[in-house]
């Protein structure tokens, strides 16, 4: 049995979520758009899920749009908004450590549709500066898209601060909350945001389902056209079992988060402290305190991430790496580079993300085997950097 430290990639499903979904596969199989009793029962399931989610987000039911993934939610939020509002301006502000779903969408809009995009720098912890954000806003700016919590280094942005700056300048604010939704405050009235993307697969819910919160009065154009489902914003027959699943998953995550945050934060800090103590020339990436309770991203100098992962895999330990050798583009992680690490250090960064099934025994196993793996690969490596070489 593997010891899984890759919960930011995806999670297993909570059995309670599976149970909530099960009846909508072959018992309650209706199309919510059909005017017959089978269809009406399906519609009722979708309505109830929407209601449950609106309560968790402290918003109106009509402000929730179901989509096919977090990436689709982000695409709908950004493309849908800027296309509907281009008469007001053509400038978008985002930042360099966003997920590809945001970065690639923005690059596409720059290249194909004439929008201008500002990619804000982040500091060594991965935080943007509110001052820089405010300075970047022009009379052409229509949208700011800044992620809630980073998927690689776990840094949590000052969302309230960002939304205040946006409000002051009358600019709409979208946040990618895919990593955050299971652990952080998602009360949109408290946060003051206009658009928020969430998906199921990081929440112990199903993959292939996402949702987008759209504040009333925020104009969007659909990116998928057809039968006009989801208030005309996302055509296609509603995925009833998955909608029931994401509602249940978000409900459980938010209801149980207080205890889980304490448990995971303790385990995370235990993991970080022990690894940094036992392995020389290693350091933590991301913010020391303003970070997700389940994320530890650590760089090991002189070794290459893919080699570390393959060795860990032999011990049944699953994590992920920011190394170039593990990406399609052969570039190291853009997040690790954006926080100012040189290329040579970026290759040796490993992300450990904890979750429901993570136990102290599992973390102990990792702490036990990792020093030997790093020591061995350093023996093999002709490189001998010092921490000073990568100082920022």
């Amino acid at each position: 049995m593997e010891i899984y430290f890759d919960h930011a990639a995806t999670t297993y499903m909570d059995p309670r979520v599976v149970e909530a979904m099960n009846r909508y596969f072959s018992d309650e199989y209706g199309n919510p758009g059909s005017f017959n009793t089978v269809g009406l029962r399906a519609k009722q399931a979708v309505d109830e899920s929407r209601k449950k989610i609106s309560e968790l987000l402290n918003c109106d039911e009509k402000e929730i749009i179901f989509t096919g993934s977090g990436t689709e939610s982000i695409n709908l939020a950004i493309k849908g908004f800027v296309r509907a509002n281009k008469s007001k301006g053509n400038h978008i502000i985002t930042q360099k450590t966003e997920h590809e779903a945001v970065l690639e969408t923005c690059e596409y809009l720059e290249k194909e549709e004439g929008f201008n995009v500002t990619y804000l720098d982040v500091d060594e912890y991965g935080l943007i500066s509110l001052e820089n954000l405010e300075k970047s806003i022009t009379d052409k700016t229509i949208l700011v898209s800044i992620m809630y919590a980073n998927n690689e280094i776990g840094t949590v942005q000052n969302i309230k601060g960002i939304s205040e700056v946006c409000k002051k300048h009358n600019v709409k604010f979208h946040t990618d909350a895919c990593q955050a939704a299971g652990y952080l405050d998602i009360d949109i009235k408290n946060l003051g945001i206009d658009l928020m993307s969430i998906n199921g697969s990081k929440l112990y819910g199903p993959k292939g389902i996402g949702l987008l919160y759209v504040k009333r009065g925020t104009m969007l154009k659909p990116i998928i056209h057809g039968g006009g489902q989801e208030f005309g914003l996302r055509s296609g027959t509603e995925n009833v079992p998955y909608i029931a699943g994401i509602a249940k998953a978000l409900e459980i995550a938010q209801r149980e988060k207080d205890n889980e945050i304490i448990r995971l934060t303790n385990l995370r800090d235990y993991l970080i402290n022990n690894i940094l103590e036992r392995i020389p020339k290693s350091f933590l990436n991301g913010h020391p305190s303003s970070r997700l309770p389940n994320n530890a991203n650590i760089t090991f100098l002189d070794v290459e991430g893919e080699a570390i992962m393959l060795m860990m895999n032999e011990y049944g330990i699953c994590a992920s790496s920011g190394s170039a050798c593990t990406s399609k583009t052969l570039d190291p992680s853009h997040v690790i580079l954006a926080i100012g690490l040189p290329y040579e250090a970026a290759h040796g960064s490993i992300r450990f993300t904890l979750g429901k099934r993570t136990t102290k025994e599992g973390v102990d196993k990792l702490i036990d085997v990792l020093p030997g793996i790093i020591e061995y690969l350093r023996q093999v490596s002709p490189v001998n950097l010092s921490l000073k070489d990568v100082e920022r």
Partner: protein
Amino acid sequence: MNMADVKSHDNTSWFYTDTVKDHFFNPRNLVKKDNEIEVKDFNGVGSVGSPACGDQMSLWLKIDENEIIKECRWRCFGCASAIASTSMLSVMITENGGMKINEAMKVKPQDIVKRLDGLPARKFHCSVLGDKALRAAINDYFKRSGQNEKVIVEGAKIVDKILKITDKDIEEAVLEGADTFEKVQKKTKVGISDKTCIPEVEQLIRFYKEKYFG
């Protein structure tokens, strides 16, 4: 392991063959740092790559008076593919009494990959580094033994002195559609460690663009 062996930060994954894993977990002819070799016993030394590009290789050769490679030792900063490829290369050129250097020069990355029972397509380039280090070590041997005329310059000129990237690499990148410095850098990593070469690279990109695309 019946799951994918490696899962990446961009959510793709791949498998390695048993031979690759064997050479990764039990590398042959490796020199560990705590088991240093007597460098003076080796008469051909090559070092290529840099940690910035994710791969660095040092390779030592012992070549006898009949120009047969008797020993090949190496050390590598790199992924599993790079480590396994170099391990296999060191075996191939020293097995059965050793290869003559002119034979060893003919060993191609494709031959190494074949002996490894294959590498995932996207990891193919990782097998090239050992080959480059071998060429560098043999050239070093030629220089040391006063056979300067035999040093092979590969018909290409090095522009990036740290990553040893040549004008040919730039040409290939341009042919593959990289039409700006940023795109060429993305493909080749040129100018990341050796920033002094950037103006020359920019000139080369203009030259090859003109040549092939008018």
